[in-house]
């Protein structure tokens, strides 16, 4: 065997304990990366299976060709097709079955009165397809719906809502529909449902009545199958018979389209988000690995010098160190792969615990998900060890005779170069970031500045470490006497090591801080928005997330307005249209009444005069598009294009969006109507509690949406932010854990290195307790350096992110002192915890061996 390799292997084996921290860092990083990729594979495969199952018996789908993208409707919004078309297609030779398929949003209310689902996965309602092959659902018990008000629900929904055959409950479409459960269905091959989504199957007549705009004769699509033709032949056969604006595609194409849609809408973003955090964890691991090898090489200077003196080439010494790193890389990456499967399960459990169910039955592990993390783990480890290995190779043979090398990273020429370069990077980065974030936000400029500022901080680390530790540790001598003073000086004695250790934590804390600040700012912005523009007293909403939920019934506003306690109640619905070629969301409302509950600021023109061909546009949007009062714009709905006139301009950026349209104008083009919110103003003198109770009573009859006062409304609007933040915290925990491992590892190595010094201290009277406290406080100091640096950097970058992402200039920036204090405290406590093991090892030192002369 090659000598370098042999020495590397031997020394890896001999220094197992020193390398444990490195192995763990690589392992965790690789496990996270693997877990992310496996979860992505699994989700993709499961979605694919779900859509394939949904279209298993369908040969072709006939539907409107034109589609408008909508945020909360999978696949976008299309105009309905006539059900009569199904009757015509059924007569085409080769068509074995043709059935209208109505699909819309319908959220079931469970036995306890709470809505089922709604947090992410769709809550669907539709007609129960009578053709057993076309219908992806199978009856598990009971029978198909026949009479009005009868429904089949999927087994998952039945279990979640504790509903049984014969139960009567409410379906929010969002108009409340009373249904009686007559059957329980399974999906595909005996699944509880189409993933975690819910489905309510009604009779065709019921489905048309509740889920289509006209109430009869319309369907979302028509599903065909043929016993004799291939899918493509079937499509080719029916295509010439379709009216204009209607298309046919094969079942397989429909499946592929759905998979692509969910990928683009959800999976890509989801896995990218996870990959970003895996990347952060690996970045932090890089610092830890680099640091460990740097220390190991420093401690082995004499050994390497001896090798050089005995005639080893630089390359052989370098090779030996790299071989050792390679052992770590391979062992840790392989273990990380195994751990990754566990991480995938853990992540999926994490999201389930937070209320987002993911379809993750059966882990799918693609080759890339094994090969890539393995490669990344090995490359990251070898890359991180490269510099220390080069340094090992440069060891002068004479170093064997010298006492020890001096850390010159903070002083001397290297120190000056560092100081100049670091300051330049930091200052330049700061200027770029500020310029990018403020002067007409530029993401590229801000990001470049942020990266440069981060690099500057890292470069400056060793120069600033000694001073920072000195300042941060100032109270220590008074608190802990000479052991405290020693802790402070120990943390400062090897600034580049302290800096490298702290930098890992700094990166982690900076990202935590960035998200904390960003989330607080979003929350503040939402609060501001509600404060500024919500002029009502109560808000009625149906909480939902992603594609779930069904909104609030548009009839609710009218009913609430009848209450004697209520001065004004206006519903705000959401519509989509392409305005002058740009896909936009519209607020469908009663613009004349709106100022009673929503503060629209100065209004030019007349909100009351919009009629069926007028639009109200926010002043900023109008300015951006170059419109004035009286401008005419083209508005493309799913069923055609019309010209509208801009009749009013108002102050945007509030509860109402950029476009307001009357219900009358929207009605002909709607697909399934729902309000996102009903804003209510009470009559003067009506106590809030009384008004709220009265409105809640009415709302109960409309499927129990929640009634909130201003404070609650603002808080719930920000609720999603907090949920996202807890996900981010959970994902960042790993990076922070790796950073803490780094601190523990560096300290353990330092303890090993200072064996004789510690022995001397013990001999001249330092108690075990004092020694432990000394090592622990050193750990806390290093952690404090990293945490404080991270807080500063994170707060600054958070500010930049808030400003850069706020092109309208209406957002607020908030530094939440309480949360940041918790981050600081957590950093310090974590530092103390990281110091436990090294402190314990130091305290167990045998005094005699420590002071024994060699």
């Amino acid at each position, binding site marked *: 065997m090659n000598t370098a390799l042999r020495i590397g292997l031997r020394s890896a084996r001999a220094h197992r304990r020193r390398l444990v921290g490195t192995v763990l860092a690589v392992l965790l990083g690789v496990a996270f990366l693997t877990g992310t990729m496996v979860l992505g594979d699994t989700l993709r495969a499961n979605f694919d299976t779900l859509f394939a199952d949904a279209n298993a018996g369908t040969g072709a789908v006939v539907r409107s060709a034109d589609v408008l993208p909508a945020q909360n409707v999978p696949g976008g919004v299309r105009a309905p097709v006539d059900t009569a078309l199904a009757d015509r297609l059924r007569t085409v030779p080769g068509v074995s079955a043709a059935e209208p398929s109505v699909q819309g949003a319908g959220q079931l209310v469970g036995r306890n009165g709470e809505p089922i689902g709604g947090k992410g996965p769709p809550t669907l309602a539709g007609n129960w397809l009578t053709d057993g092959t076309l219908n992806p659902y199978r009856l598990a018990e009971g029978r198909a719906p026949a009479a009005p008000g009868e429904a089949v629900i999927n087994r998952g929904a039945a279990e979640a809502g504790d509903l049984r055959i014969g139960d009567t409950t409410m379906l929010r479409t969002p108009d409340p529909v009373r249904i009686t459960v007559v059957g329980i269905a399974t999906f595909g091959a005996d699944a509880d449902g189409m993933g975690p989504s819910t489905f309510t199957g009604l009779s065709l007549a019921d489905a048309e009545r509740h889920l289509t705009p006209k109430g009869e004769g319309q369907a979302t699509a028509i599903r065909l199958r043929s016993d004799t033709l291939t899918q493509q032949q079937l499509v080719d056969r029916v295509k010439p018979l379709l009216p204009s604006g209607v298309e046919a595609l094969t079942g397989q194409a429909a499946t592929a389209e759905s998979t692509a849609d969910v990928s683009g809408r959800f999976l890509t973003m989801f896995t990218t988000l996870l990959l970003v955090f895996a990347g952060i964890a690996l970045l932090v691991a890089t610092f830890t690995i680099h640091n460990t090898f740097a220390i190991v090489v420093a401690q082995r200077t004499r050994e390497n010098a001896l090798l050089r003196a005995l005639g080893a080439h630089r390359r052989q010494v370098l090779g030996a160190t790299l071989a050792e790193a390679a052992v770590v890389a391979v062992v840790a990456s392989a273990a990380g792969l195994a751990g990754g499967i566990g991480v995938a399960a853990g992540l999926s459990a994490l999201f389930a615990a937070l209320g987002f169910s993911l379809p993750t039955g059966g882990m799918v592990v693609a080759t890339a998900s094994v090969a890539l993390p393995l490669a990344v783990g090995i490359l990251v480890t070898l890359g991180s060890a490269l510099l220390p290995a080069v340094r090992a190779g440069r060891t002068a043979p004479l170093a064997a005779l010298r006492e020890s090398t001096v850390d010159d990273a903070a002083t001397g020429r290297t120190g000056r170069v560092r100081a100049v370069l670091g300051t330049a990077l930091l200052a330049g980065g700061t200027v770029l970031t500020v310029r990018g974030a403020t002067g007409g936000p530029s993401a590229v400029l801000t990001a470049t500045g942020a990266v440069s500022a981060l690099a500057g901080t890292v470069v400056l680390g060793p120069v600033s470490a000694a001073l920072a530790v000195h300042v941060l540790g100032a109270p220590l001598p008074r608190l802990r*006497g*000479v*052991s405290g*003073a*020693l802790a402070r*000086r*120990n943390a400062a*004695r090897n600034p580049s090591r302290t800096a490298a250790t702290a930098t890992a934590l700094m990166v982690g804390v900076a990202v935590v801080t960035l998200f904390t600040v960003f989330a607080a700012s979003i929350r503040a912005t939402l609060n501001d928005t509600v404060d500024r523009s919500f002029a009502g007293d109560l808000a009625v909403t149906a909480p939902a997330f992603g594609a779930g939920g069904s909104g609030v019934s548009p009839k609710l506003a009218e009913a609430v307005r009848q209450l004697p306690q209520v001065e004004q109640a206006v519903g705000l619905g959401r519509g989509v249209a392409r305005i002058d070629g740009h896909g936009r969301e519209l607020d469908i409302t009663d613009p004349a009444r709106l100022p009673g509950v929503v503060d629209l600021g100065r209004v030019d023109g007349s909100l009351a005069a919009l009629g069926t061909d007028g639009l109200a546009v926010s002043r900023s949007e109008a300015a951006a598009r170059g419109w004035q009062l009286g401008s005419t714009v083209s508005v493309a709905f799913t069923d055609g294009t019309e010209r509208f006139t801009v009749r009013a301009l108002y102050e945007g950026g509030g509860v109402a969006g950029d476009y307001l349209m009357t219900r009358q104008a929207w009605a002909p083009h709607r697909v399934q109507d729902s309000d996102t919110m009903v804003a209510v103003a009470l009559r003067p003198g009506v106590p809030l509690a009384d008004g709220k109770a009265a409105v809640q009573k009415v709302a109960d009859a409309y499927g129990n949406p929640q009634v909130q006062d201003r404070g609650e409304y603002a808080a719930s609007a920000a609720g999603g932010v907090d949920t996202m933040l807890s996900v981010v915290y959970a994902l960042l925990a790993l990076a922070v854990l790796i950073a803490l491992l780094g601190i523990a590892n560096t300290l353990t190595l330092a303890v090993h290195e200072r064996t*004789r*010094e510690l022995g*001397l*201290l*013990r*001999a*001249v*009277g*330092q*108690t*075990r*307790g*004092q020694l432990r406290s000394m090592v622990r406080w050193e750990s806390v100091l290093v952690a404090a350096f990293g945490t404080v640096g991270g807080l500063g950097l994170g707060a600054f970058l958070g500010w930049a992110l808030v400003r850069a992402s706020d092109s309208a200039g209406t957002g607020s920036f908030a530094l939440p002192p309480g949360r940041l204090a918790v981050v600081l405290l957590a950093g310090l406590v974590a530092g103390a915890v990281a110091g436990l093991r090294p402190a314990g090892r130091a305290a167990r030192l045998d*005094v*005699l061996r420590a*002071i024994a*002369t060699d």
Partner: protein
Amino acid sequence: MTVVQLHPAAAVTDAVKVYGIGATRVRALDHVTVEFPAGRFTAIMGPSGSGKSTLMHCAAGLDTLSAGSAHIGGTELGTLNDRRLTELRRERIGFVFQSFNLVPTLTVRENITLPLDLAGRAPDAAWVDALVEVVGLGDRLHHRPAELSGGQQQRVAVARALAGRPQVVFADEPTGNLDSRSGAEVLGLLRQAVDTMDQAVVMVTHDPTAAGYADRVLFLADGRLVDSMDTPTADRVLDRMKAFDAPAATGRPAGTGSTAARAATARAATPDTARSAAAGPRESDRR
């Protein structure tokens, strides 16, 4: 003070120390009894592996005996737990080691007061100043150990050992890493401590010249006390060592002679130390 008079500063009685088990079992101390009285400078000599370091470590409470007892003043060390033992070390014992005597992150003054600081005791400023004066490092108080020569470092270590007015100072090869001139300075300091402060000093050494500074030399071989010599001189000690080496045939015949030669010249350069008129044989009598 009464305690000091009733008990020797340090003592071991019937001390046995066994290392390892089975085939690797080594008896490092074999029923050794010895007292180290106040105001006396005792040197412990013996070939490598004779148990001299073990004896010092056990007497100083750095190591525990397998059998027998060790006392510092009237305190039996075997009865103390680690915490009490540590406190006893910093309050009643001073240490000077061969190398790595100082904490590199502390200044000279901080190193001197380290045991007191660890105990949370306020150092007696006048006493520390006097010590600094004696060891001759008044202008180096705020330097770090790395900025001092080896001899200066050892002098700081001596000052540290004396700073807490301990009952006994243990020195383990204190001149082992020093040139003869620096070594002589350190030994002179220890001698002075015995003579002017009535300090008990116990020194392990294999250097006959160093042993020449002591009032009494104890010779150990194979874990047993085999001989002792009062008012030694370097030459007499060297002769005695040779006598040991010859029958045992284990010692280091080469080198000792030249060490002695070097030591002799060093001795000539040693300034005569002033001392009080206390009882007992003194170095001056032997000169």
